[in-house]
Each structure stands twice: as structure tokens, then as C-alpha cells.
């Protein structure tokens, strides 16, 4: 191991958690306290975890990604015993006959951004400042590594009941389906270790700097401030901008047919803009905010990262807590460049969510 490292200590956990929420606005706060207190205790006991940029690692260092697969509420109902992530990693190590020298998050968002920190502390290995999504997508093969030709398999899902599933499949999509078929039996959620590869491969395949980014975003979010200042500070770190501010006038569940490709029901939020052009903003939800229409015109959509800020309190509004009458700001943050390529768009763009419209960036002639 060489090169400069920063450290993640127990004091950084709240910021990490808040930042991770910004990049996955659909996820609620159900498992917050148990997870953060577990991680805080772990870091206090084991000491801080070293955070390394990928290019500072020796290229041949074996690395593996970690994430929480399944529903957040299942994780809250059946909290981790604590050894699931290490156990998943050990199974792949056994299978491949390697010892992983670093771990990294599959998605630097949601609780999946926190568990690699815990695993790194338990294993005594560094954490890579990189991830596969730069946010959270629904399926395990929706990653930059997959686009770069790195296979997600062999992968191991280790459930809270102590059972595990090892999957080896020819394509990412088949691996995802095999995995989801076992998820209920595993306990509703599972610790997933996947994408076993080397640091050298991750240099070209992973999205760099995403852990430090969520920590920075989290620190901004933790400072209680007025929404306008909050958005300008977030813009400086993430490049986000406000699409509009308005009051929620309608919440529609199951607002359109689902093709079953994504494990979340489609629904819509209708917001009446309270200033500016007083447009009707329509927010389409699935496992994330998929698209925003202003008076029926598509103004932002996946792979843009879309989130809502509670304009009264200056905090992030999670999608399962929205109510009619809430005053919210709609924020759009550009996704990582890889997602706007043709392959990226085909994978996680609007058409994947059943919206056969061109992305506004394409219409504007942007790359």
C-alpha cells in the first residue's frame, strides 16, 4: 500500500450517512440509528479506516465491492449481526484463493456507503475512495465497472439468518435475477460482496472520489441552514441546481403500468410551483426519481440525480415521507459522465424506466 490516505473516523459517520442519503433520496431513515451506532462503535474500537484513492493502490491489489442488497425496512426489522459482510468476502476469498487488500462500495449511497467502512474496519484493510454507481441504481449490474467489462461474479450474498448464496452467471442481468430470487429466503436483505477485481482494473472501471464526495455533501447537509444557502453550497460540491420550488398538490400511487424490471412501484408526485413561472412539476418515481416534467415538458431525467429538499426546514426530503402541502425544492445533480454515454443511457436512462423520450441533455445538444 502506498500514497497519501485520509481517514474515516467515528466522527465522520453522521456526515457519511447524510451524504449517502443525498445520493439515494428514495431511501428512508428506517435503519438509521442501529446502523450508525454500530459503525460508530466499531470505528471507536478498531480505530479510523484509511481511505485511499484508487490510483495510489498497487495495481495488482485484489479488491471487492460491498453493498446491502434488499429493502431498508427489512434491514431495520432484522439488523445485521455484524459479521455478514466479512463472511461474504471470506467466501469469495476461499473460492478464488486470494486475500482482498481493499474494499470499496458498490454504490456510494444509502447504507451501502457505510457497510464497506465497517467491513474495512473489521478486516483491517483500506477503503477505496471510489464506487460503481456514483449514486444508487436498482440493479447490481448498473455499474461503471460492468460497462468497463468487469464481471460482477462470482458474488456472494450473505443473509442475516446465516445462510448465503454464491452466484456465478454469464451476464450481470442474469446474476441480478438469480440473486433477487433468493433474497426473501435470505431474510429480506443480504450483505453482497461482488465485483472481485484488482485496483488496476478499478482505475479505469470505477468512479473515483465518491466517498469523499458524500462526506463533504453530508457535512454541508448537517449544518442547519436556510434552503437557499444550502442549495448554493451543495451546488459548489455536486454541480446541482434547483429546477423549481413548489407545494405538493398530489401524490399518485401506481400511476402507470410497471414492467417488473425494477423492484419498485411507479408513482408520481405533482407539485405546483409557487414562484417563477408557476408551472406544474410532475415527478415520476420508481426506486428513485426518474424524471421531472414541467407543464408536461421533460426537463430532467435519469441518469440525472434528482432529489427533493424540504424548503421549510432546509433538509433532504425522503420520498416515503412526502405529504400533500409540503413545500419542496426540486434539485437536479448531473450524474457521472459515464452514464450519459450511449451504453450508459441504454442501461440506466429514461428508456429503461419506460419513458420513450429523449433526455433533455440530448435535446440541448450536450454530449
Amino acid at each position: 500500500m502506498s500514497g497519501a490516505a485520509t481517514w474515516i473516523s467515528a466522527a465522520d459517520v453522521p456526515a457519511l450517512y447524510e451524504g449517502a442519503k443525498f445520493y439515494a433520496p428514495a431511501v428512508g431513515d428506517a435503519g438509521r440509528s442501529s446502523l450508525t451506532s454500530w459503525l460508530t462503535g466499531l470505528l471507536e474500537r478498531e480505530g479510523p479506516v484509511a481511505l485511499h484513492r484508487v490510483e495510489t493502490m498497487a495495481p495488482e491489489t485484489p479488491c471487492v465491492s460491498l453493498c446491502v442488497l434488499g429493502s431498508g425496512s427489512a434491514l431495520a426489522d432484522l439488523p445485521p449481526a455484524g459479521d455478514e459482510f466479512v463472511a461474504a468476502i471470506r467466501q469469495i476469498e476461499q473460492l478464488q484463493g486470494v486475500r482482498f487488500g481493499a474494499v470499496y462500495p458498490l454504490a456510494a449511497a444509502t447504507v451501502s456507503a457505510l457497510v464497506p467502512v465497517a467491513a474495512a474496519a473489521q478486516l483491517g484493510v483500506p477503503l477505496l475512495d471510489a464506487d460503481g454507481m456514483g449514486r444508487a441504481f436498482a440493479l447490481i449490474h448498473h455499474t461503471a465497472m460492468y460497462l468497463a467489462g468487469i464481471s460482477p461474479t462470482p458474488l456472494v450474498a450473505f443473509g442475516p439468518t446465516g445462510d448465503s448464496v454464491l452466484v456465478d452467471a454469464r451476464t450481470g442481468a442474469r446474476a441480478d435475477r438469480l440473486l433477487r430470487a433468493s433474497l426473501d429466503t435470505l431474510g429480506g436483505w443480504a450483505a453482497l460482496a461482488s465485483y472481485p477485481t484488482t485496483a488496476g482494473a478499478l482505475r479505469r472501471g470505477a468512479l473515483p472520489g465518491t466517498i469523499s464526495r458524500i462526506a463533504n455533501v453530508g457535512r454541508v447537509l448537517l449544518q442547519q441552514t436556510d434552503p437557499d444557502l444550502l442549495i448554493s453550497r451543495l451546488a459548489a460540491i455536486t454541480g446541482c441546481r434547483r429546477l423549481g420550488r413548489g407545494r405538493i398538490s398530489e401524490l399518485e400511487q401506481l400511476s402507470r403500468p410497471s414492467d417488473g424490471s425494477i423492484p419498485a412501484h411507479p408513482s408520481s408526485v405533482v407539485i405546483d410551483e409557487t414562484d417563477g413561472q408557476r408551472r406544474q412539476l410532475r415527478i415520476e418515481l420508481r426506486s428513485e426519481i426518474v424524471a421531472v416534467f414541467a407543464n408536461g415538458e421533460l426537463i430532467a431525467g435519469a441518469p440525472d440525480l434528482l432529489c427533493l429538499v424540504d424548503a421549510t426546514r432546509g433538509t433532504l426530503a425522503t420520498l416515503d415521507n412526502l405529504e400533500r402541502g409540503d413545500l419542496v425544492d426540486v434539485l437536479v445533480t448531473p450524474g457521472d459522465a459515464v452514464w450519459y454515454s450511449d451504453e450508459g443511457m441504454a442501461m440506466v436512462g429514461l428508456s429503461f424506466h419506460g419513458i420513450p423520450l429523449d433526455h433533455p441533455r440530448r435535446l440541448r445538444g450536450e454530449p
Partner: protein
Amino acid sequence: MSQRPSTLPITLGGLVRIQPLARASRLHFADPLRQVEQVVLAQTFERLRRCAPHVLVVLHDTAAAGGWSLAAALHLAWERNVSAVVVSGAVAGSAGAALAERLNMTLLAIDSDPVDVALQLAGQVSAPAAARALGQALCAERLAEQTHVRGVLGVLNSELQNAPVALVIGETAVAGRVAALQDKTNARRVEVEVQGPDEQPWARLVAAVPVNGPMAVEQVESLLRLARPSLQAAWAQTRLDSTVHSAHEQAAFGLLRRLAAEPPPDAPAGPVEIETPPWSSELGWQIDGVNRAVWLTPLRPSGAPSEEVTHLVRAAWQRGRTHWPLVVDGDSWISWHSSEDADDVGPLRRAVTAFRDSAAAHRLVIGVGQAHPGVAGLMRSVAEARLAAYVARKQGPAGVQWFDQVGASAALAWLPTTEIAQVADLCLAELMDARDRMALVQTVLAVLDCGGSLSQASQRLGVHRNTVLARLTRARQLGLAYDEPEQRLALHVLCYALASLWTQSGTDE
């Protein structure tokens, strides 16, 4: 001559009147006059992007998948300037309706299969004349359901939208929109004559059709013709109603009069407060306040008036004052105005002034009583008005007399002038045979009226004092001994009767 059917495109307003869109719920209806030139069944957003302006879009399949799709479709429709969007009711929620309103885009929700609806609409749009004929047939049904003139005009105006229609009698619009009569350079006037039950022209239906509007003149004309039977039926109904109403009012007034004349047996002596019977308010009568009666009577009474005359008098008297009663009483009509303030004569004065033309036309005179409270007061005012009306006869047709200004001279109005004149024929045969009898009688009357003053009499008659003197001498020779005290009253009355009679008839025959 056969008329070629109009080839103007059908309007949105025309389409929603007939099936299948008549059943559609209108989530937002922007402009009924928007033309619909084509129907597009849009399955994809790509198809929507290729729509020409003025088409009606029926959303289907992907374009009607719910959630965002309706919003996106409405936006594209707005960009393409389409006339309307039709979508399945299952997809269209309140947010869709709100967006349609925001974009001012007509949005109609249907329950049936969009493909079937699009096919039917395409047929209607490609044969606008047939669709319009269907619309007219439905309109005829609605017209037939109307029982009042206003209802008929209401249907016509809602059907013709921007072409105002009015029913005109003479030059006055009696129902509908007065805008139909205003001369506009950009509108063409269409008129259809309406005959009364006696097959005589009774009224005209007038419509002002905008020159560049979506409605052809022939189409408007045929609609107006369709309305004629309903109007005739409504008119007949009104006549029937007014006859019944008139009889009802007459009976009620008779009862009221009896109440005032025969106070209850247990009532104390002196003036009696008579409670207003509750049935009077059912007729719309107001009696509780201070009442001032009006007596309308023919200049020359000739028995009870016909129903037609009563109808016309009622129409003229109640124009703008529909709550004022009009009760037939013998050869005359009674009306009254009730108010809280006895000095409030403004409304009555205006009513009398407005009625004078009609009074002249029907050779009526008008008497107005004083203001008195309650039922008994009304009856008293009626008696005063009647007296005043008799005095008003002296003024000729449309004469108006207020009782306040009559005083004791009202007594003269009751003199049986015809009978007294007959007495003159017997007692003053010589005078009545004289050729200058009119001048002689008028001169004697003037001298008696002026208390024997020759100079005042000559001034009133406009002749020289000597002429007056000469006529008096001649009158005395012919038996008019006006200066004999025992005969003076009798001769004064005789001269008054003769002069009144001759003034009324305009001759001394």
C-alpha cells in the same frame, strides 16, 4: 333550388354535442369554436410530434400509459397547436386536468375504447355536414323539450355559441341576446319569421352570424326554423297561462274587496285593521305597505274587455314590473303599487309615463288614487283612482288624473251627462234648435263659471266683451234664463253636461 351543404370544418363545440364525445367528461374545455380538421390516433410520442395544427388527438397505448405520459402528451399537443386531446378516463386524473387548464388545452376523458372513438370521430370530421345534421337533430330534440320562450332562446344561444339570437316583436327584443340586433360590420344578420296561432306574423328570430365564424349562415337559418314550432307552442302556453292567471287574480281581488266591505262581526266599532290574507302573496301581491291604486279604463266603456285586450294591456303595464298586479274589474283594470313610504310616487309616475303610449293606442285613461295602508286602504285608493279616471276622461285618450289633484270636482265626473242632455232637448227646445247653440251654451257656462264676470268670461272664451253680452241676450231669448236665481244651478249643470258631451264627441250633434 337545392343548397350545397357547407364544407366548413366541424368545430369542437359541434363534436361534443354528438356521440361519442357527448358522453366524454370535459376535464378542460378551452374553446368550443376551435375547428377540427383531422383526427389522429396517437400511439407514440413520435406520432404526436408529427401532428399538424387543428387536429384532434386521441391518445392510445404508450401515449396513454398514465402518470407522466398524459402530461408529456398535453405539452406536445400544446406545442403542435392541436384542437383537443381525448384520453381514457382511467388515465386522466385531476393533475392532468390542472395541466390542461394551465396550457388551455381541451382535454376530454372517455370510458370507451380509444380506437373505436377515434374511428367514429374520423368519420364525423371527414363528413362535417352529416355530423352537423346529427347535431341539429339532437338540438331539435332539446328545442322540443322547452315549454317557455326563454328556454327555446336559451337552447338556440347555447347551440349557436358566438352567433347571438333574439326573438323580436316589432323592433323590440323580447327574449334572447340583444346583441343579435346590433349592427356589426363583421356579422351577417339572419332572420326567420315566426307566425302566431292565427297564421299571422307574430315575431322574428334574429341572429347575428360572424362573417369569419365557423358557422355557416344556412346552418344558422335551419336551426332558427327548427325552433319555430317550439316558440309557437310556448306562446300558446303563455296565453293559456295568462287566462288562468287573470281569472285567479280577479277572484282573489273580489274576495279581498269583500273582506274590506264586511269586517268580522266581532270587530270593534271604528276603523278596522284587516289582516292581509296569506293567499295574496301566492299571487305575488304586496298589500302590507302603503298602497296607491291605479285604475285603467276605456275612454268610452263598452262592456268587459276581451282576453286579447287584457293580454296586451297586461304586457304593456307589466313591462319591467312583472310583480305589479293587473286585475280585470268590469270594463276596467286595477293595479297598485305598495311601498313603505307614502310619498314614494317615483315608480308609479314612471310606470304611468311608460304606459301612456299603450294607453293612447288602446284609448284608455288612467286614474291614480292616494296612498293608504293595508287592505282597507287599498280599497279606498281603488275607489279614488276610479273617480280620478272618470275625471281623466275629460282629457281624452291617455289622459292621466291623480286623485290628489281632483278634489270636489270629482263629483261632476259622475254626472249622467247623456241623460241631462236629453233633458235639455225637452226643456230648452228652442235653444237646442238654434244653429249657434254650442257657442251660446259655452258662453253661458263661462259666465256662470266666472261668477257672472263678463270680462273674465270674455278672456276665457277669447272673444270681445260685447260679443259675450250679445250671446247672453240671445241665450236668454231662447230660454236660457241664467240670471234667475232659482234656475241658475239647474242651468249651470245643464250647460256643463252639454259642453262635456260635445267636447267628448267633438260635435254638437
